[in-house]
């Protein structure tokens, strides 16, 4: 038996892929998380009220989602309902996270696969053969920085936000600042659309290069955004069947009853399944499970996706295109939301902490994220983090098998396999720091 090992770059964290082959047959494909963060252990005994400042450090890419999930878990335990304005500011925070994450995944992580370069920082202006590639790194970073700046505006700090607090947020948003930022978003929207259009176009070229879109088989989908419109500050988890029916709805506390979670002996991350079937979370799940984006430009892209690929759509490389739709959506919607006034004072309500159990749910860029705390004497007695990447583990491995079988024949390994492995994994945009929290 031969084991092929592929280290991975251009993803968050340390991971690799191992493919076992015997006499030309693919025996197994494994996706291995190589590091162990262990926040579930580290937060033992930590004063519960400090969780919102500590847990963003699980991951600097998804920090905002953890920040908000922590606050919501504490609110659930304390029986607190934040005022509507605070919820709206939290939604803005999550939109900032979405902009930053989707722009990073699209342009920094996967664009180089489309262009056949090491990184977008390795395209010199002389090499940039089309206008679309000109200055691509700077434009991409400019767009993703909007996300970070929105997080700063709504969340205080730029990577590890601080402003969501139990009972609400610690302050509104200054009207002048909001207005200035709204203008920036407006100005950047066409730039983002241009990049997304270009990305879409070069992705379609790859159709021939890979032969197919990779793993195109149906799967279960999981998401917590709403049925009619996306909403990232979410409250209900939904599962869709491979045929596209919405089969199940549940709140975060029912997670263990609804999904099967297991550890593996070859990875520091676990994995989940739904009734024995492969689940997919992340952008494609949301696109399949939300009727429309509810805003002009994003809806135009959504219609294009549906008319080109149908509904529900299964090809894995559509994850990337859906990220593009969400990027446009988040910029467009944030600039619309910022027309409202967030500068007034009813942004939090008083509360009394108490012991007990709480669940916090948000739709992170990678899917539903759950924080679950048991609080005793004001301290965390048990902290559990249910990470969206973990829902995609089986789907990643299934897609890797499709790629492996495609490029391994008898005792020949087509060198394209290495590229394919990278593309397959990046389509799911896994986050290893989170998955091993």
């Amino acid at each position, binding site marked *: 038996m031969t084991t092929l090992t592929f280290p991975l770059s251009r993803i968050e964290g340390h991971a690799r892929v191992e493919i076992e082959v015997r006499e030309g047959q693919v025996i197994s494909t494994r996706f291995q998380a190589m590091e162990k963060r262990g926040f579930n252990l580290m937060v033992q*005994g930590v004063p519960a009220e400090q969780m919102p400042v500590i847990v963003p450090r699980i991951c600097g890419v998804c920090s905002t989602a953890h920040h908000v999930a922590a606050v919501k878990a504490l609110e659930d335990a304390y029986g607190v309902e934040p005022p509507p304005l605070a919820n709206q500011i939290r939604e803005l925070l999550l939109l900032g996270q979405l902009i930053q994450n989707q722009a990073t995944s699209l342009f920094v992580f996967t664009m180089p696969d489309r262009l056949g370069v*090491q990184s977008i920082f390795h395209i010199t202006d002389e090499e940039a053969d089309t206008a679309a590639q000109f200055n691509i790194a700077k434009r991409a970073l400019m767009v993703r920085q909007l996300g970070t700046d929105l997080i700063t505006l709504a969340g205080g700090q730029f990577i590890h936000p601080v402003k969501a607090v139990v009972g609400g947020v610690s302050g509104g948003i200054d009207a002048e600042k909001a207005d200035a930022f709204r203008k920036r978003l407006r100005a950047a929207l066409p730039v983002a659309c241009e990049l997304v259009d270009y990305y879409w176009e070069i992705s379609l070229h790859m159709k021939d290069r890979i032969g197919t879109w990779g793993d195109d088989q149906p799967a279960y989908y999981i998401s917590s955004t709403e049925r009619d419109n996306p909403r990232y500050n979410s409250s209900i988890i939904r599962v869709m069947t491979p045929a596209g029916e919405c089969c199940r709805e549940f709140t975060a506390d029912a997670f263990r009853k609804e999904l099967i979670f297991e550890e593996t002996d070859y990875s520091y991350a676990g994995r989940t399944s739904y009734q024995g079937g492969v689940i997919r979370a992340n952008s494609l799940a949301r696109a399949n499970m939300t009727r429309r984006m509810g805003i002009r430009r994003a809806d135009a892209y959504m219609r294009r996706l549906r008319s080109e690929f149908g509904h529900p759509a299964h090809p894995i490389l559509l994850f990337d295109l859906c990220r593009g739709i969400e990027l446009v959506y988040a910029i467009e919607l944030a600039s619309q939301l910022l027309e409202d006034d967030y500068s007034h004072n009813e942004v939090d309500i008083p509360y009394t902490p108490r012991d007990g159990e709480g669940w916090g749910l948000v739709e992170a860029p990678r899917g539903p994220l759950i924080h679950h705390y048991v609080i005793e004497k004001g301290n965390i007695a048990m902290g559990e983090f249910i990470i969206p990447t973990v829902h995609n583990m089986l789907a990643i491995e299934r897609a890797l098998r499709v790629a492996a079988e495609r490029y391994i024949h008898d005792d020949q390994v087509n060198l394209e396999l290495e590229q394919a492995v990278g593309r397959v994994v990046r389509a799911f945009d896994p986050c290893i720091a989170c998955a091993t929290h």
Partner: protein
Amino acid sequence: MTLKQPPRFAVLQLSGCAGCEVSLLNASEWIDQFDLAFMPLVTSAYDVPEVDVLLISGGVRSDEDLHNLRQAVKRAKKIVAVGTCAISGGVANLGNRDEVRRLFMSQTERHDLPRLLPKSQPVDSFVEVDLFLPGCPPTPELFMGALLGPEDFVASKTVCQECGRKKLKDMKPAHLTGSRGGEVDPEICLINQGYLCVGSSTRGGCRALCTRPGHPCVGCRGPSDLLIEKDSQAWLESIQRVFAAMTDIPAEEIHEALLSPQLSLFLFQFSDYAGTGQPPRPKEKVL
């Protein structure tokens, strides 16, 4: 005519959250001035090539981290430890507490994967570091400062001096406000409002990122030059003095709050507190 080559730099990510890298991506100025040779988060390259500057983020948590660290430093002229994790283990110190360490050791063993070391350790426990860039994460501006040369980076000594909130003589809280503060006054010093802000002893350079929008500084930039060559006790005393002068909060209440986990980002930057037994870092080497 030969064109001057831009300096080459690499980013080695050990065990951390990638927040430091995300911050670096917000400082897009380096694109024109530097050649990024290696940063697995954004480039497909698997070995650190010869570089002028090596930025290292994250703590040393596994045998693989240690191996990668030792290999990488051989190829770099200048070594910069970036972020609280690389400098002190940062938030990972919460996992170094004995009772938690036991859980780690008993639960995390996988066939064929990197093995965890008994404790998360700072980079300079193993290799020589030329410059420390504290922050969780350091701001894009600080990253540019480290890359372009710390000599030219201008900052105040403490976060307090960069914050600009007014300190009032006649507003003395009797207790800490805790996290249930309600609304924060945008002009007045957070200590006057009863918040446990440690900006007065934290090194400047972040431009008071957290305190300006109203959140107390948790000290991620570590001790200011006045304290950095001392020990954690000196820091605790200095904060006590500030609170004694500005508030009527009992010393015991402050003391207890200062030892709380969210300040571990700060406290563990003292090697005596972290128990690494190393001499304090010389202030000339810290940006």
